[in-house]
C-alpha cells in the first residue's frame, strides 16, 4: 500500500487548485444566473425556440432552455466537463509515465513487487482523485444551485455528476492505458489532448450540422448531452456501455502491454 499512499500525497495540491477553478466556474456562473435570468427570462426562451439549430450552436445553447436553472447549469457544466477531462488526462497520463520521465522507474522497478501490482496501486490512487474531482464538484454545485434555484433540480445535478464521472473515467483510464502501452509514454498526454481537441471540435460540428447523430459514438463529449439529461432524466444505456468498453480497452492496454514492454530509461 506504500505506493498508493505515496501517490495520494503527491496529487492533493493539484486537486486543490482545480477545486478553486470549479468553485469559480460554478459559483460565478450561477451567481450570474441569479442576476440575469431569474426574473422575466421567458420571452428570450421563446425567441430562441424559433431559431434554426446552427444559429443556436453559435451561442452554445442547442436544445437547452437557458432561462431554467437546469438549462443554465447544463451550459456551465459543459465547461466543468471539459475541465474534468483535462484533469483526467493530466492525471492518467502522468501518474505512470512520470517514473520514466523523471528517471525514477529504475528505483521503483527494482523493488520486489510485480509490475501489475504497481499498475494497480497507481490506477487506484488516480481513481480516488477522479472521484475526488467529482466530489468537489458535488460539494460546490448542490449548495450553490440551491441558493439561486426556484425549483429543486438535485436529480438533474446528480445525473450531470454521474455523466461527468463516466466521461472522466474514460479519459483517465485510456490515458493511463496509453502511458502504459506506448514505448514513449510521454507521448500519451499529447495524444490524448489531441483526441480531446478533436472531440471538442467534433461536438461543435455536431451542433452546427443537422442530422449529425451518426457522429455521436466518436465524440465522447456528446455521450450524455445536457439536453437529453434534462429531458429524459436518464443516462443513455448504449453510451454507458460504450464508455465501459473504452474503459476496458484502456485497462487492457495498461495491464497486458506494460508488464511486457521494456522501460524507457
Amino acid at each position, binding site marked *: 500500500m506504500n505506493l498508493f499512499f505515496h501517490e495520494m500525497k503527491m496529487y492533493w495540491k493539484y486537486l486543490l487548485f482545480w477545486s478553486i477553478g470549479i468553485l469559480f466556474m460554478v459559483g460565478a456562473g450561477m451567481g*450570474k444566473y441569479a442576476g440575469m435570468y431569474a426574473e422575466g427570462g421567458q420571452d428570450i426562451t421563446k*425567441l430562441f425556440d424559433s431559431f*434554426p439549430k*446552427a444559429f443556436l450552436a453559435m451561442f452554445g445553447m442547442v436544445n437547452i432552455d437557458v432561462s431554467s436553472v437546469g438549462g443554465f447549469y447544463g451550459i456551465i457544466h459543459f465547461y466543468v466537463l*471539459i475541465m474534468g477531462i483535462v484533469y483526467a488526462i493530466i492525471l492518467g497520463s502522468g501518474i505512470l509515465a*512520470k517514473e520514466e*520521465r523523471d528517471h525514477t522507474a529504475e528505483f521503483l522497478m527494482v523493488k520486489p513487487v510485480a509490475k501489475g501490482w504497481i499498475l494497480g496501486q497507481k490506477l487506484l490512487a488516480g481513481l480516488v482523485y477522479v472521484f475526488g474531482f467529482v466530489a468537489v464538484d458535488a460539494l460546490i454545485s448542490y449548495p450553490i444551485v440551491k441558493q439561486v434555484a426556484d425549483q429543486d433540480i438535485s436529480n438533474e445535478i446528480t445525473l450531470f455528476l454521474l455523466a461527468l464521472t463516466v466521461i472522466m473515467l474514460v479519459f483517465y483510464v485510456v490515458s493511463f492505458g496509453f502511458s502504459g502501452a506506448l514505448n514513449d509514454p510521454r507521448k500519451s498526454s*499529447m495524444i490524448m489532448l489531441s483526441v480531446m481537441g478533436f472531440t471538442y*471540435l467534433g461536438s461543435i460540428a455536431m451542433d452546427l450540422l443537422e442530422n449529425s447523430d451518426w457522429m455521436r459514438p466518436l465524440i465522447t463529449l456528446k455521450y450524455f448531452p445536457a439536453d437529453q439529461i434534462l429531458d429524459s432524466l436518464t443516462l443513455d444505456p448504449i453510451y454507458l456501455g460504450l464508455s465501459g468498453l473504452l474503459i476496458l480497452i484502456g485497462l487492457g492496454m495498461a495491464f497486458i502491454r506494460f508488464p511486457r514492454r521494456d522501460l524507457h530509461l
Partner: protein
Amino acid sequence: MNIFLFEIKSSLKSTLIWILMLGIVAFGFIQVFPAFYSGSAELIKMLENYPKELLEGLDFDPNQFFTILGFYSFIAVYVQVMVAFQGFILGLQVIGRETKAHTLDFLITKPVRRSSILTMKIAAIFTILTVTNLCLFAFTLLGISITGEAFSMAGLILVSLVMFLCSIIFASIGILLGATLRKLRSIAPYALGIVTGFFILNMMKGIFDDPWIQWLSPFQFFDKFEVISTQSLDPIFLAWSCFLILAMIGVSYLIYTKKDIHAL
C-alpha cells in the same frame, strides 16, 4: 545562426503537422457555410421583426452574420485556440528545451552571449509562427473562394491578423515561462492550464460579461465581428497587445541573461 537553424529543424515536423491540422479544420468549417446559409433568408426576415434593442443586446447584426466572413469570424475562434496552443507550446518548448533536457550548461559554455541565444531562439519561434499563419491564411482563402461567396479581402486579412497576434501573445507567455521556470518536466499541463483557461473564459463571455475581462483574455482583445464591420483593428487593444508582447519578451531577456544555471 546555428541555434536558429537547429530550432527550425527540431520543430519542422511538428510545424508541418500543425499546418495540416489547422488547414483541415479551417477549410472544413468553412465548407459548413452553404448548409448554414440555406435557411437564413427567412431567418433574416424573421429577425427584422424582433426589437432592435434585443439584437443589439446580443451583439448581433443579421446582415453581417449571414455572410461568409461573418460566419468565418464565428468559427475562427476554434482555429484561434489551436493557433494559440501552437504558439504557447512552441514558445515554451524552444526556450525551455535545455531546461527540460538538462543541457543548459552545455549550451552556455559555448562562446555565444546568453542574449544572442535567446534572440536566435525567439527569431526561430516567430519565423515558424509567421509561416504557419501564412499557410493558414492560404487555406482559409482557398476554402472561402471555393464557396463562391463574395467577401472583402481586407476583412479576411484583418481577421487573420487578429489570430496571428493572438498566437504571438501566447508564444510570448510561453517564452516568459520558459525563461523563468527552473524545472520543466512536461509542457502539456502548462499549455492546458493557461490556454484552455483563457479559452473557457472567452467561451463564457456571455455569462461573465464584465468589461475588465476583455483586457485580461487575449482571445477577447478584438471582437471579430467589429473588426469586419469597421474594417479596422481597435488601436487601443492593438497597442495593448504590442505592449504585452514587448513587456513579456523584455522580462524574458532580463531573467534569461541573469538566471542561475543548475547543473544536473
